[in-house]
Structures are given as C-alpha cells and as structure tokens.
C-alpha cells in the first residue's frame, strides 16, 4: 500500500510539473534568435577574447618584457 501511495504521489508531482511546463508562454525561435544577436552586437566591443586588446599593455596576462627598467 505504501508503495502504491508513493508511486501515486510521485506520478502526481510529475504530472503537475508537466502541467506547469505546458502552461509556459513561448516566443518564436526567430524572435529569440534576434534578441541573442542583438545582445551580442551590443557587447561585442567589450569582449577582449573576440576583438583583442586595444593594446597588449592592457592585457594583464601578456608576456613580461625581457627588459626591465632599474
């Protein structure tokens, strides 16, 4: 009996979850993709790994120059 009750409870939770998911409002993929592209275009210039550094001096991980000023 306990097994049956717990199986029932489990299935009830699963079904309720599916009900919630089915009720989600969705947008077309084309609209979602347009927003992804827009976000990337707006932030592309700040992306060092994409556009590089304005000067290598700005890169904290650049190779240390072999000459040092004493």
């Amino acid at each position, binding site marked *: 009996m306990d097994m049956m009750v717990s199986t029932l409870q489990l299935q009830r939770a699963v079904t309720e979850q599916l009900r919630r998911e089915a009720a989600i409002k969705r947008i077309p993929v084309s*609209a979602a993709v347009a927003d992804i592209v827009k976000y990337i275009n707006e932030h592309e210039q700040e992306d060092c790994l994409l556009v590089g550094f304005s000067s290598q001096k700005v890169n904290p991980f650049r190779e240390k120059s072999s000459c040092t000023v004493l």
Partner: protein
Amino acid sequence: MAADTAVAASPEDTLESLLREAEALKQKLEEERQKLNDVSLCAVGARLEAISFPALKLRRVLKGHQAKVLCSDWSPDKRHVVSSSQDGKVLVWDAFTAARELTVPTPSTWVMACAYAPSGALVAAGGLDNKVAVFPVPPPADEDAALRRRTVATHTSYMSCCLFPNTDRQIVTGSGDGTCALWDVESGQLLQGFQAHGADVMALDLAPSDMGDTFASGGCDRAALVWDMRTGQPVQAFDTHDSDVNSVRYHPSGDSILTGSDDSCCRLFDLRADREVARYAKDSLIFGVNSVEWSLSGRLLFAGYSDYTACAWDALRGARVCVLCGHEHRVTRVQLSPDGTALCTASWDATLRIWA
C-alpha cells in the same frame, strides 16, 4: 497519514489517469515547442559576417597539484584562482604570477567542487566526502586555513558542484544523491531542497540577472532544469541530450542556457522559446564535453573535452574557430575571468592553464 488524506482528497486521481495525462501533456509540449521553431540560430548566423578570431595564447601554467584537477573558480578580484583536486587539496593561485599562495588540505580525496564567494574572502569546497565546507581566504594572520575550515552541509552522496547565489551567506549545492539544495552558511540549515533530477546532479549555474532568483542544473538523467530558488520547483526542463549533462552555463543575456554533455555535443536552449535552438558538434569530435563557458559578449563559447583539448565555437554560425592544445589529459573545467580577459582551463594532467 498525510499521504492517505491526499489520496482521499482527490479520488479521481488514479495512477492510470495521471500517466495518461502526463503522456498527453508531453505530446502537447513537444507540439507547442515545434510550432514556434520557425528558423534555426545557425541559419540566421550564417548570414552574419564570420569573426576574425584572435589566436588565444597559452600565458601561464599553474603547477602544484599532485593529481587530477577537478574544479576551479576565478576570484571576483579577477586575479586569483582557486582549484580543487583528486589529491584532496584546495589551492589558491595568483594567476598573474602563476604562484601558489595557499594550500588547504581536506580530509577527503576527490574534491570535486570549489567556489569563491562574491566578497572574494571565502571559499567553499567539497566532493567525495558528501560535504561542502568553507574557509576564509586569505586566512587571518598566523592562522592555518585548514583549521578555519568549517563544514556547512552534508548530502547523502558526493557533492559535485556548488556556488554562492550573489551572497556570502548562502550556498547552492548539487549532489550525486540527485538533489540540489540551498544552505545557510552560518547555521548550516537547509533553506530549500530541489528534487526533480532522476539521477546525479553534475552542474549548476546561477542566472546572471541581479534578481538571482533562478538557477540551472544538469545531471546524469540527461536533463537540464531551470529552478525557481524561492519555491524549490523546476520551471523548465530540457531533455534532448543523449547522455549525461556535465556542465551548464547561462548566456550573458540570461535568456538561454548552454549545456555540455557526454554525448560530445553542446546545446543551446532558449528559455523564452522553451526549446533547443542550436547544437555545437562535429563528426570528428567523439569525446565527452566536461565544461562549457561563454565569452563576455556571448558570441564565443568554449568547451573542454575528454580528448585533452578545449575548443572555441562561434555561437552564431555554429562553427569551431579555435582548438586550444596543451593539456595532457582530459579538460575538466573551462572558465572565463570575471572581466573577460582570460580563460582558465583545468585538467586531469594536474595543471591549470591560463589563455589570453
């Protein structure tokens, strides 16, 4: 007793009717998702200009672990990195100089997860000991960090991933027991449990919004779930992967999640379209993806593979643009520094590497 009341309260619910409804809902979900699938991301991306990707160079090699490095995390100061290893140690590095600054031994091997708190003054770590523990970094003067180590929470199986949800006071963990949990750091009290995964939870990521009310998880049930932190309920589920989901990362915009899986494929799921919108895979890539990451703008995505490499992909065109070679064993972790200037990779070859 409570269960009996619940059964009596709705006598129309039988296992059969619930199963029937679940099947009908699944089909409806699939149809609804398919209806809005009017274009693919990469079809749109193909019309965009190809990126001229600057070659990432290997800048630092962090050597000091005695065994597989299983996890790492950048400090919010953009300079330090914490790493955890199969050797049972948690190390803190200065990534600028490649110097090891702190060694914290733990009572267990396989420290599978480590994370910096938002203040940068606290680190959480744990793994095969089923526990998550915290210690201050750097430890107060003349004190041993290991002695300041304090257990916050215990799962019934290994702790595979952890993060601080925009506050030093709470930790979210994922575990081999199939649950995620939100804990109070100070009291060790369980604030919220999250149960819906059908198998081990492998990865967590926090939504980038300031609200910080949702997070995503991935697991060995091949699913990625999006959770509401307040209610403890899953909000969305994506289950198109063919194998374990090892890693999950929110796009910087917060509107989609990227997953990496043992099926050697990365997938992008848009939260508002509620479906998979892109796939990043090649026939020649046959090894699993252990970790995924975005560049600052979300144009590039990075994936660490079991074939000892990490790759960069153009997220919009779906093309691989760069392969990072150097590691001598599987790459377990790929993470961007908080300012987006460098990438840190961790590997079973016992090293971490910084690329910029």
